[in-house]
């Protein structure tokens, strides 16, 4: 297994849930991990504490990914301190679920702002640094590719990441930068616990593995993709969904 020794990583929305699991995995493989958060300072510090008690190195950084100036300052500070950035994991995301006719314009915009605009701002700042040392990996965490009721905003944003990742991969590949899109199905996190019970039961029935994923399983995938073991992958979407997407692709269920 390739290590990430001496690499510098930044994970947006790294204070809890899938982001926290990714932070801990990258640190376990030897990277210095910058844990970005917006509001949940205590949870970000808890994540840092856990990372350090596992023997890892990291720091926390408060910035709102929807604000280009805050993003710019964060990446500038990371560069001044470490002189490089090897891994960016665009993980920050929010939910504002509502059936379409009940979805307000702000439900729509807020989700697109974090899930898509935030990825634009952060990736741009990261590519500036990565192109300087001609290496780097950007991993965009989307969500399951199967459309869910009440999530027009979420699905639009997350599928936007498919195109974003493909196009950016073509453009920055010659600079030694890889771009990947990871599409998780249902995972047990704080955010998924807001889903209603009938939806949760339905997901079991339609998932071949008949369970939800555990955050460390997603983290292991991100760790692999971030490492040199995956040096030939770029521009691809990789689903980690217990087979849910395969069912829809072949059976339309």
């Amino acid at each position, binding site marked *: 297994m*390739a290590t990430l020794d001496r690499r510098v990583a930044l994970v947006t929305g790294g204070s809890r849930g899938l982001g926290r699991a990714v932070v801990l995995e990258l640190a376990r493989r030897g990277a210095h991990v910058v844990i970005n958060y917006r509001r949940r300072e205590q949870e970000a510090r808890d994540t840092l504490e856990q990372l350090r008690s596992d023997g890892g190195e990291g720091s926390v950084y408060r910035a709102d990914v929807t604000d280009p100036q805050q993003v710019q300052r964060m990446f500038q500070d990371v560069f001044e301190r470490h002189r490089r950035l090897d891994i960016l994991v665009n993980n920050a995301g929010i939910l504002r679920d509502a059936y379409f006719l009940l979805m307000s314009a702000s439900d729509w915009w807020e989700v697109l702002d974090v899930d898509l605009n935030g990825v634009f701002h952060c990736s741009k700042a990261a590519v500036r640094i990565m192109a300087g040392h001609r290496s780097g990996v950007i991993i965009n965490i989307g969500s399951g590719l199967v459309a869910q009721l009440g999530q027009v905003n979420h699905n639009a944003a997350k599928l936007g990441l498919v195109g974003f*990742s*493909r*196009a950016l*991969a*073509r453009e*920055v*590949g*010659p600079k*030694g930068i*890889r771009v990947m899109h990871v599409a998780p*199905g249902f*995972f*047990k996190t704080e955010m998924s616990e807001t889903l209603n019970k009938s939806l949760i039961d339905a997901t*079991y029935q339609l998932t*071949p*593995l*008949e*369970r*939800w*994923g*555990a955050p460390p*399983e*997603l983290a*292991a*995938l991100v760790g*692999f993709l971030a490492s040199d*073991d*995956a*040096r*030939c*992958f*770029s*521009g*691809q*979407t*990789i*689903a*980690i*969904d*217990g*087979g849910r*997407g*395969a*069912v829809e*692709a*072949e*059976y339309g269920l």
Partner: protein
Amino acid sequence: MSGDLSDDTDVQAVLIHGAGTSLGLAVGREFVRRGMTVALYDAARPARTAAIARELSAEGSVLDLSELPLDEGDVELNLAGIAGRCGRLDALVNLFVPNGENGVADLQSYALKLYQRDLAAAAIIALYNNNGMIVNQFLLASSFADTELGHCVAAARGAIAGMTRTLCVRHARLGVRVNGLLVGLLDAPEIKVLASERVLASTTPLRRWAEPVDVAKCLAFLVLDSGYITGQLWVMDGGLTAGGNGP
């Protein structure tokens, strides 16, 4: 809430089908280094497979089982025999590199044989592991461009992509996962011999062709560390098809 991992998931023995190539050597070496018992099988290339087994046996536990029947007759019974020789069977890796001038003829029956083998293997693996793995490695047509071999590779790839997704549903009931790894431009001696000067894609966004060791690292991740991934087709191509069609 069943977010828990299965407990009996230790992957100890892997069968590599189509092992008698540079790809087989790299993949076998990676699994041996990770402490697994590795069974090599390639009835079409027995001499090369035997040489690879000799080379790798210095590094760990390797068996060359090419003399046994596998794809003819009762495939499940044959696989049970192979599992018996290994002591158990947790994973099957199907490797594909076209076999010289026979490439096109081999391809016409390749997907059907792969289907029968994957079907039988799930039943055997389920006896030993409740989160076992089958990986079908195949190629995109990139390396062969607009040639007869390229067309046959594309047709077989379509068949393998579809059956990987449908088998994932059936196999999940047995506690076995199945995934595909599709390699674009592969920097292997066997492929270079076959690739004509008409190869369309002379470069990739990453300016890199995949080497056998890259395939090996990826297969090791899929077999050993990819617990919640099934029914997926990964494309390893240095970003070549990033703007185009998925599988």
